[in-house]
């Protein structure tokens, strides 16, 4: 209750406190293993080491190990002009998926490699665990590497790995042996199974190379890994002949099939390796291990104010009267007290409806990634400020004035349960989740909030990938953003973008048989000062379980127009259905106010389904920007803390020939939340969508403020999974 502290401590209170908060956090972060004999924290499995392709394995060859579930492992490797950037994700406990970007340097003075000095290639892998390691039985996995498209790295394998901890040797020994096809069957073949198909030059690619899988020469490979503490030693026999690289590319000479290496675990996240390969080359790897369930920095949130039971501060019967609710001035006073209390926790009161025994607070949460935490803080603020007669709290999280969901709880439960064992489960059991509904006509809207104006100046980075000559391009500059909300549900937003430096403008000009709705990005990148967005948006609840949005203006750099969306999503349902209709026109390249001639009516019917293991399935069917008809399927592992890792593909009535390279639109998405990285409350995340090739088929307009993502966060499933954060 009091803030007085020791006089001596007060001389430098800020510093002392900072020490306790900041240094404590840092010290704990850097010494996660220091807890001597006390019980360990949330189980953190040691992941297997990775190979040059980023897969669990030896040096160039794979092993049968799997990463811990949901692990995300980016890695870099280089030897003999072979540079690889690998992204490996453990999608399910028995399945890993990988995306790779490789560069092969050409060493042949007389001939370019497929027309380039460095040939860049993108490929996807998938690996399945057939069975886990047993006491006598090795783990066995089957994998398909670079299974679609050109298949430059195309290999299939079946591999077994067994771990030993021999008494004669400290540490751990892993022995791996397998059979490889394709690239992994090119050296020392022992048999041939059928005929292996090959990639037809000039094909648009993108299709599964089923005519190659597990066909042609088969060769054995094997190796051992010995790990002790932070160190690891590896040796392997490789069955990859590197025919292209040692042949026409002349980039190195393969003198031996044996590879050797040493690895060092620099930190829990980082492993470094140095190797001697193929009797002639040195190589290095850097392997990063991340898991959405283990934050890079543990979250630190200032302590909340505990709930004080009303019995202690309102002992007299008279104080419990409901008479105050009759007086407008008393209600306004209660509203202002509540708004002030919420402000201490960084929350914003939109409106409050006060009755004698009930109160509904609508809040805006711009600080915490977790709606549960925001709800907990709001409930505490209500318990602290509202008159004793109010027993039922209804809290409605909102986004741009739209109620997303509602939780209802009893004040006496808050008072009774805060310090009980398993307080989170106990409170959740007596909490109701409901449709948000619309704010009552009696609601006292926050006067200091509307009309509201907000602005920000912040740097931006806009990358562009996979230009064959310069694989990574980027524009850097500053965004000036402004927003104006005249009343709940209305929003006008705009962004002016000023580029300082960039090389996206030097990219490849697009070539497309379709209307160039995305491939003329280079033309759009020719201007330094652009109006990135300017739109007006209205959001409202047209009915029970329904959410609606209407927008007009310049939505993104390439398109502007009109957009409308309706979403059906009951709070307790895993299923949501949406309908979106847009009439958009292509904007002028200079991105001021003008438009080009091309306009299109585009829209989709969408189904969203929450699956087990945090998977979210989304299917959108409709008409795309180039006028093509079809559907998009996306499957995303969506963690409560904001991590998202997923893939999508779109099939439309555009033929592979008309679509061009890749045959159809597909890609992967990744979001890493800031709060996970920094351990501070935040709603932001680094988002990334990587398409092997950006074409014009299957493209959607990017409308700001789509509903589903925000609505879902305030619904039962998400709140229940995060119930532990309510009391935090």
């Amino acid at each position: 209750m009091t803030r007085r502290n020791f006089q001596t401590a007060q001389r430098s209170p800020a510093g002392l406190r900072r020490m306790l908060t900041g240094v404590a956090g840092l010290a704990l972060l850097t010494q996660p293993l220091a807890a001597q004999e006390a019980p360990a924290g949330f189980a953190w499995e040691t992941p297997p080491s990775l190979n040059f392709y980023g897969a669990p394995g030896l040096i160039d060859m794979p092993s049968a190990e799997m990463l811990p579930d949901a692990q995300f492992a980016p890695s870099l490797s280089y030897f003999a002009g072979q540079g690889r950037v690998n992204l490996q994700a453990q999608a399910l406990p028995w399945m890993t998926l990988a995306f790779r970007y490789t560069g092969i340097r050409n060493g042949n003075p007389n001939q370019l490699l497929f027309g380039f000095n460095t040939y860049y290639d993108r490929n996807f892998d998938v690996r399945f665990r057939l069975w886990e390691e047993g006491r006598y039985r090795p783990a066995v996995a089957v994998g398909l590497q670079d299974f679609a498209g050109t298949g430059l790295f195309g290999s299939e394998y079946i591999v077994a790995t067994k771990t030993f901890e021999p008494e004669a040797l400290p540490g751990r020994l892993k022995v791996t042996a397998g059979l490889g096809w394709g690239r992994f069957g090119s050296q020392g073949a022992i048999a041939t199974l059928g005929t292996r198909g090959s990639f037809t030059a000039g094909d648009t690619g993108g299709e599964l190379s089923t005519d190659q899988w597990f066909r042609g020469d088969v060769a054995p490979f094997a190796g051992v890994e010995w790990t002790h503490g932070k160190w690891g030693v590896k040796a392997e026999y490789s069955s990859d002949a590197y025919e292209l690289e040692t042949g026409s590319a002349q980039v190195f000479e393969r003198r031996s099939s044996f590879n050797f290496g040493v690895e060092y675990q620099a930190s829990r996240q980082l492993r470094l390796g140095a190797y001697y390969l193929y009797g002639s080359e040195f190589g290095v790897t850097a392997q990063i291990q991340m898991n959405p369930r283990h934050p890079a920095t543990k979250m630190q949130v200032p302590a909340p104010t505990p709930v004080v039971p009303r019995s202690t501060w309102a002992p007299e019967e008279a104080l419990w009267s409901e008479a105050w609710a009759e007086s407008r001035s008393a209600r306004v006073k209660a509203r202002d007290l509540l708004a002030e209390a919420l402000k201490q926790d960084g929350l914003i009161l939109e409106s409050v409806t006060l009755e004698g025994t009930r109160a509904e607070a609508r809040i805006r949460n711009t600080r915490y990634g977790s709606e549960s935490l925001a709800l907990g803080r709001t409930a505490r603020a209500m318990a602290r400020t509202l008159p004793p007669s109010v027993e039922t709290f209804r809290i409605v999280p909102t986004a741009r004035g739209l109620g997303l969901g509602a939780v209802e709880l009893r004040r006496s439960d808050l008072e009774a349960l805060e310090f009980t064992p398993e307080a989170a489960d106990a409170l959740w059991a007596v909490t109701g989740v409901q449709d948000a509904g619309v704010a009552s006509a009696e609601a006292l809207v926050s006067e200091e909030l509307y009309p509201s104006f907000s602005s920000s100046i912040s740097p931006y980075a806009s990358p562009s990938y996979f230009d064959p000559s310069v694989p990574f391009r980027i524009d850097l500059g500053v965004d000036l953003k402004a927003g104006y909300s005249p009343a709940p549900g209305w929003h006008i937003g705009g962004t002016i973008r000023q580029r300082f430096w960039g090389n996206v403008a030097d990219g490849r000009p697009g070539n497309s048989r379709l209307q160039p709705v995305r491939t003329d990005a280079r033309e759009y990148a020719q201007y330094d000062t652009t109006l990135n967005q300017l739109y007006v948006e209205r959001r409202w609840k047209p009915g029970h379980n329904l959410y609606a949005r209407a927008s007009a203006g310049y939505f993104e750099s390439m398109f502007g127009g009109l957009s409308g969306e309706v979403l059906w999503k009951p709070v307790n349902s895993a299923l949501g259905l949406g309908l979106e209709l847009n009439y958009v026109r292509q904007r002028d390249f200079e991105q001021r106010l003008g438009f080009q001639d091309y306009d299109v009516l585009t829209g989709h019917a969408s189904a969203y389904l929450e699956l087990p293991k945090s998977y979210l399935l989304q299917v959108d069917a409709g008409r795309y920007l180039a006028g093509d008809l079809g559907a998009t399927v996306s499957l995303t592992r969506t963690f409560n803390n904001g991590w998202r890792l997923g893939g999508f593909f779109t099939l439309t009535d555009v033929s592979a020939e008309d679509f061009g390279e890749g045959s159809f639109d597909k890609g992967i998405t990744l979001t890493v939340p800031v709060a996970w990285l920094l351990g501070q409350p935040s709603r932001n995340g680094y988002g990334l969508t990587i398409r092997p090739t950006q074409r014009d088929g299957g493209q959607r307009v990017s409308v700001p403020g789509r509903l589903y993502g925000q609505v879902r966060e305030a619904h039962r499933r998400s709140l229940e999974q995060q119930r532990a954060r309510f009391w935090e």
Partner: protein
Amino acid sequence: MRRGMKTGLTRALGAGLLLALLASCARGPEATPLELEIGKVVRDQLGQRFGKAEKPQPPTLTRALLDSIKEPHIEVVIEEAELRDYLTLQLARRDELPGRIEVWRTVDNISFAFRDGMLISTRGLRGTMLSASVPADGQGAMGPASGGQRTYAFRGDDEGAFDVNLACELQDLGAESLEIVGLTYPVRHLQERCSGSRGGEVVNDYWIDSRSGRLWQSRQWAGPSVGYIRIRQVVI
């Protein structure tokens, strides 16, 4: 030449971006852009590194100093981080379970809650102890009333919690005399030895006044992230 230009350009670019990052700002009731949040962390780090070296020394306690303070205070030391702070009583109450609940907090919002002197939650530190069941009997003397099962819930996993279950044995290590800043108290030393259901051992120590039953000092486990904390009642 070209290379030189490129380095110059890169440097200018780096400086420009850093400036942009430092000069960025946001106002109004909307979410802060990502780049600004990162910028703030960069600024804080730079401030810590190049700012005025402010190395606060925790106060040296004397009985005279303590006597001049009216409000109850406890001293909390986080052993692993070697940090010490003095906390004031934020709330004292009871609920339907036995034992008196006390919440003590620092000025910058780190709080510890105890039931009859036994730690039941931490807030504001990394690796929050969400809740705990402790053997309080509410029958006068503070500290553990018996051995048996203990359950802690800590923040972990994906915005969730994980439990640590302990089986504890309570031992009375007998009478001792305990000195806290110039005053000596006759105390009984109780020790809990607990083993985790998934391995690990926890030892909690309590020094309880032989006459009043007040807990003067303790050393308790606050979870896998925080480790052990030491608590002393310096002003009642």
